[in-house]
């Protein structure tokens, strides 16, 4: 069989960084082909080359056996390659129809005929007159797909489409993908969620550090093999030992459910006896007449990992920023060990000796200063406690050297601007700083987003260590499996409100998904 799209010996570098090195790939008709790889493996670069945004330094691209030169996104779509990016490119103040027609010269009549045909063919339901700003993320995704199908795409590229989805929304997307496959088109699917990958794809290609590793048939592989190929063999031994221990735990829980529940319920009993560390009562935040979150109440016990789940933008991030004193709330109370924190600033927290660690979502934009070195970043909060008006960098330099060793941070030296370091190292510096003060409460917002597997497990281990020390953690996460595995209780938020707080031993992914959509008690109903 002749491939629909064929990439041969593609090279691409940015400055000294080799993003892709001699990558060859064939995509056949009617298949869902997953490209798997860690962050920085070159997935995005590959997509950008296919969609005409980057020109490869070397190598050739053939479509339907014909050699092509994709020098702009227009070239790509006219050759039948349509891309749906992770961050949607839709105009919010326009309707679905207007967005689809953007840049096209079709008349109304032709449009109606063509779109009706497509909607029927792929069994898609959407209101063409609805404004994008009134749509959920899932609906917007469908509009994006519709847009590229309308422009005649035969090969659909989906870049991490399910990152912000509930399992239900993802299922809906998969149905459309299967339909596209049946219509003898192909889908290139980018993801790092293993279970999804196994579920939906026909073939899986693994990239690692810009190199093409292998293409595998779904039937003849396993999650273990894929993980191994993705991460590579030559990983630092120390981390791997830790990671494998964690993975063993993971396997134990998933293989032997009874045992793990037993263990957990024991912990629970112990937990309920302990004191409440922080109690939140009816707090609300309104910014620019928009309600960010409303009437939120919960408590976190000492030594508990408290998870927060929700579709991105449901108010989790703002809630955590409010707890950390970065945002001011006007209504409700936050009581930390019997002391009311409402309306107090970060500086007052520190003066009162309230040990609160906070890892915000935007690491370089909020938690750290990119152009400064490790030493200056480590003193970001603690410098205020010194009485003298001058800075004393010495203790922070020692702390920086200690941290580099302890967390295995890769940096030329501690006086190197941190923005040149990789995401994982940046996160280690941030987390390292926050746990150094030995916080009673550690608030983490998407702490593993964009990090490689090794660093993820380092961070999960740190979270567990904090729990063992008797400290509490509030963990805002995306991966529901990890949330269920790691947390004692999970609070699900939807549109700025708490849907429910569930014990993680009673939680399943599906149930959490429904709660994320705002359906109390997780009963099923019409989605979307």
């Amino acid at each position, binding site marked *: 069989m002749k491939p629909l799209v064929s990439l041969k010996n593609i090279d691409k570098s*940015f*400055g*000294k*960084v080799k993003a892709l090195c001699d990558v060859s790939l064939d995509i056949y008709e009617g298949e869902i082909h997953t490209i798997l790889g860690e962050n920085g493996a070159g997935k995005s670069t590959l997509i950008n080359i296919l969609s005409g945004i980057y020109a490869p330094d070397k190598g050739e691209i053939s479509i339907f056996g014909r050699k092509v030169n994709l020098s702009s996104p227009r070239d790509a779509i006219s050759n039948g390659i349509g891309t749906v990016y992770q961050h949607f490119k839709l105009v919010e103040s326009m309707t679905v129809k207007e967005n689809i027609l953007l840049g096209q010269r079709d008349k109304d009549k032709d449009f109606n005929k063509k779109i009706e045909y497509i909607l029927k063919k792929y069994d898609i339901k959407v209101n063409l007159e609805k404004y994008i700003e009134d749509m959920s993320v899932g609906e917007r995704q469908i509009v994006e797909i519709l847009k590229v199908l309308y422009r005649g795409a035969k090969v659909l590229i989906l870049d991490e489409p399910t990152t912000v989805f509930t399992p239900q929304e993802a299922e809906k997307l998969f149905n459309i993908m299967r339909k596209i496959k049946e219509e003898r088109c192909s889908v290139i699917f980018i993801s790092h969620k293993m279970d999804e990958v196994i579920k939906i794809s026909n073939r899986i290609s693994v990239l690692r550090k810009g190199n093409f590793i292998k293409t595998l048939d779904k039937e003849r592989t396993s999650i273990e093999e894929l993980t191994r190929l993705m991460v590579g063999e030559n990983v630092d031994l120390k981390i791997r030992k830790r990671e494998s221990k964690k993975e063993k735990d993971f396997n134990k829980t998933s293989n032997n459910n009874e045992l793990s529940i037993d263990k957990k319920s024991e912990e629970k009993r112990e937990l309920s006896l302990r004191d409440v560390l922080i109690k939140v009562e009816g707090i609300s935040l309104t910014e620019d007449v928009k309600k960010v979150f409303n009437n939120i109440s919960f408590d976190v016990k000492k030594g508990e990992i408290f998870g927060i789940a929700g579709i991105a933008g449901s108010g989790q991030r703002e809630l955590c920023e409010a707890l*950390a*004193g*970065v945002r001011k709330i006007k209504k409700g109370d936050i009581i930390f060990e019997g002391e009311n924190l409402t309306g107090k*600033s*970060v*500086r*007052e*927290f*520190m003066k009162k000796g309230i040990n609160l660690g*906070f890892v*915000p979502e*935007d690491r*370089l*934009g*909020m*938690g*750290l*200063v*990119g*152009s*400064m070195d490790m030493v*200056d970043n480590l*003193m*970001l*909060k603690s*410098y*205020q406690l*010194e009485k003298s*008006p*001058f*800075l004393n960098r010495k203790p922070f330099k020692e702390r920086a050297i200690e941290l580099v060793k302890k967390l295995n941070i890769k940096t030329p030296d501690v006086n190197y601007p941190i923005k*040149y370091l990789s995401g994982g190292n940046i996160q280690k510096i941030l987390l390292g700083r926050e746990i150094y003060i030995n916080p009673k409460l550690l608030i983490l917002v998407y702490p593993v987003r964009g990090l490689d597997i090794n660093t993820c497990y380092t961070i999960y281990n740190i979270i567990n260590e904090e729990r063992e020390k008797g400290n509490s953690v509030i963990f805002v996460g995306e991966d529901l499996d990890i949330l269920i595995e790691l947390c004692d209780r999970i609070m699900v938020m939807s549109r700025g409100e708490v849907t429910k707080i569930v014990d993680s031993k009673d939680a399943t992914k599906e149930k959490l998904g429904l709660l994320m959509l705002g359906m109390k008690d997780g009963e099923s109903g019409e989605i979307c």
Partner: protein
Amino acid sequence: MVNQVRFVRRDKVDKYTNIKVKLISIVAAFFIMSLFLIMLKINPKDAFIGMIKGAFGSPLRIRQTTIKAVPLIITSLGILTAFKMKFWNIGGEGQILMGAFGASILALFYNGFNSTTLLLLMALSAAVFGGLYALISAVLKIYFKTNETIVTLMLNYIALKFITYLQYGPWKDKKALGFPKIANFPDKALLPNLLGVNVGWIIALILIILVYIFMNHTKKGYEIAIIGESINTARYAGINIKAVTILCVFLSGALCGITGFIQSSGVNGTLSVEIAGGVGYTAIIIAYLSNLKEPFILIVSVLFAALLQGSSYIETSLKIPNSAALILQSLILFCILSSEIFTTYRLKFKD
């Protein structure tokens, strides 16, 4: 052919490339200038040697160059302070004038002190006037979210017209036979000389050290840098953004105000509309070219002063029109500023 050469982003801008590119751009500027001079039938070699001679050729000329460098250094330090916080204060010109005004009030009307006390009070008054004048833009920005670039620029014109009004109106010297000028300062209100130049140069050197220590080794300087990098990080760290902004902008204006004091008391001997003479604008360029690093401000300011002094020398010695000298200055600036693209990108030739 067009596709043969491409701009490729450098991984990281290192110091040496930066300096190398800037030096090459200066050479390029001189090369273009040479072509221009040849067009005027002047030997470029004579012109350039003339400029160096004019700037450093004799003790008198060195003194002149120093006098020109001092206001540039101090004002650039003021601009640097605000720019570190990404507060775009381009109102150095107005703050210099208001500083000079602050010094003049004391020198002309409340001068019943001995010389040292009077000079210290004049410096203080100049700093307060310059600082408060700059604060207008900070307060408007904090409470009404106005754009500080526009506000500081507009305040320049207000200050200029205000001094013009004083000079032609209420403060006009009746003894000057109708000539529109403000009365000279009494002798005790003039800055003393050291090594033939008014002590402004010592003040400038001290200020470089003080600003360096403040920006790099104090908590407030650190907070200014954090606010400049990211307001959200500043909020995260619990920095009082309003208070630090007010302090920072006040200091920025105060430094410019001190320039006004030195220019009126040490150079002009009185207040006049020409006192700022574009220093407030040149200082922006110097602060920028120095990469907001205090020690470089000294070097760049001296080079700029030499350029000014050297070109006014060849103006008379080679009979080049003044405008030609200005063209050379602008060419150098143009080349250095446009060289920026080569510090962030490099050219790649297709193999």
